């Protein structure tokens, strides 16, 4: 269940200020996608998001959810139908975790049993054991756990739309990474329409189906998929915002199947070492990859010591990111073995391939 959100010429002007905080923003947020608003602090991204659930009323313009004008709805009722998660979670400190998560179902008038079943289900969903956490108070939780509860509370009434305002901004990098992974797992299952605000471009690339790079007054500098933004930044401001690590970030977007694989000299584990040596000399290569009877990579052998193979360590699949491949190359040395869906050998990713991809991306970005 998800809804399309449309912003039409949305403007927010605070009385007594010259320039509007948000100036005539129009965009469509497709149903079931994570759209990340990213931009420097003070650019109006949070204001834009908060106008969707009318925590801030637009000065002019329209916002529709599934075609319905949000201004025609009672704001409290509107908000109960939109999940809301914020930085530092904003949990009610005087209520238990269970009461926090059950708040929106309570506001919607669900009965006690349905509500408490839902609370347990939600805690489970965000990876907190209900028996252990339901009756705790927020102050008894770590920052990461509080954020999980915040997400559980936002999801409790199964809203089609979720607004998340830097929800992982206040936790340490490792926890943040875990929470991001968790959110992606949840989203794969739930397919909500999620508007996610962050100032961290890396987070935007990781989570977003689409990214809206916003400039001052929430002007949309570029609204596209992460791949497109990384490869073709609309202007210098966007390029500057992406930062120097753009090519490396793009490695997380490219899959191994998208680059050209090179071929190793292969042999069967049962082959005679002398034959392997002859094969390598003929091909002018130093290493051969030994495969088992089902074509799966087993070990490497060097031309000078064909009798003493070293086992294949890290391998990657066609679905792995180039980032993963680069890591495997660095641990394996020289090349990473790529395997297919049944673990069979399909090719190699060599360090040169990764390097030339990075170079190509940089040239494209510069063009």
């Amino acid at each position: 269940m998800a809804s399309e959100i449309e912003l039409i010429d949305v403007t927010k002007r605070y009385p007594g200020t010259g320039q509007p905080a948000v100036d005539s923003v129009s965009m469509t947020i497709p149903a079931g996608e994570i759209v990340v608003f990213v931009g420097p602090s003070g650019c109006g991204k949070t204001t834009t998001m908060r106008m969707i659930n009318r925590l801030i009323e637009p000065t002019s313009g329209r916002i529709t959810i599934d075609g319905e004008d949000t201004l025609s709805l009672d704001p409290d009722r509107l908000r109960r139908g939109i999940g809301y998660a914020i930085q530092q979670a904003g949990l009610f400190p005087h209520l238990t975790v269970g009461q926090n998560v059950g708040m929106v179902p309570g506001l919607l008038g669900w009965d006690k049993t349905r509500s408490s079943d839902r609370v347990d289900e939600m805690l489970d969903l965000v990876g907190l054991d209900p028996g252990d956490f339901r009756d705790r108070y927020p102050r008894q939780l770590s920052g990461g756990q509080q954020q999980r509860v915040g997400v559980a509370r936002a999801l409790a009434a199964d809203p089609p739309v979720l607004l998340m305002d830097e929800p992982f901004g206040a936790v340490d990098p490792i926890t943040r990474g875990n929470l991001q992974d968790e959110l992606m797992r949840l989203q794969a299952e739930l397919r909500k329409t999620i508007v996610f605000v962050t100032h961290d471009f890396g987070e935007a690339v990781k989570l977003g189906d689409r990214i809206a790079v916003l400039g001052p007054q929430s002007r949309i500098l570029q609204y596209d998929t992460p791949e497109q933004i990384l490869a073709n930044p609309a202007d210098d401001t966007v390029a500057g915002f992406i930062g120097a690590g753009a090519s490396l970030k793009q490695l997380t977007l490219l899959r191994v199947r998208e680059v050209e694989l090179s071929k190793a000299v292969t042999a069967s584990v049962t082959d005679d070492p002398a034959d392997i040596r002859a094969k390598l000399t003929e091909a002018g290569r130093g290493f051969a990859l030994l495969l088992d009877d089902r074509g799966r990579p087993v070990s490497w052998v060097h031309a000078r010591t064909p009798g003493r193979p070293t086992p294949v360590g890290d391998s990657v699949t066609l679905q792995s990111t180039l980032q993963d491949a680069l890591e495997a190359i660095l641990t394996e040395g020289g090349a990473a073995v790529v395997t297919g869906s049944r673990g069979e050998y399909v090719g190699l990713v060599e360090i040169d391939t990764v390097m030339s991809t990075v170079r190509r991306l940089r040239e494209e970005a510069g063009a």
Partner: protein
Amino acid sequence: MTFWDFVADRWNRLVGEALLHVSAVVQCTVLAAAIGVGIGIAVHRSPLGSAVATALTSAILTIPSFALLGLLIPVLGLGAPPTVVALVLYGLLPIVRNTIVGLNGVDTSVRDAARGIGMSRAGVLTRVELRLAWPAILAGVRISTQMLMGIAAIAAYARGPGLGVEIFAGLTRAGSANATNQAIAGTLGIVILALLLDGIFALVGRYTVSRGIRGE
């Protein structure tokens, strides 16, 4: 007659006055709490309103209680009415100030989350803000109660009820038999009652402040 003989002799009368004293203080505190919390809620969002409310209620406290009662008697007559008005006015400051401090101490992110998940303004106030401000409000009410216990004694000047009657009688008859005993009995009674009420407040706090925000 020793002090204890005096107390034993007048026991029934002293207990009656003590009950009246407590009853007057408690009722006036409840009234002051209702008004004070109301004022606090009304002004806490506005810095100017908060400053004015705090200044006005502080100004009331600077009026000597004798003078205030003296001013009220011509308007309200003798007995309960001037006593109640004076006590309520004196009790306002700590309650108003603590309500403002308590409500302003509510974390912005908590208020934002409450609005964001669809609580009405009244819901945010009653289910979140006042609950979180409650320890501060309760502390204010507790201070007011202690203050009013003492001030209520002066109300005897306006023929108000309570242990003040004993103190005033003792003081006006200074030098005669049992005058000192009478004044001490009244004073001591007030101190004991104040301690008892304070203990009750500690219990109330224990049972009404959420475990999630209790400082322990």
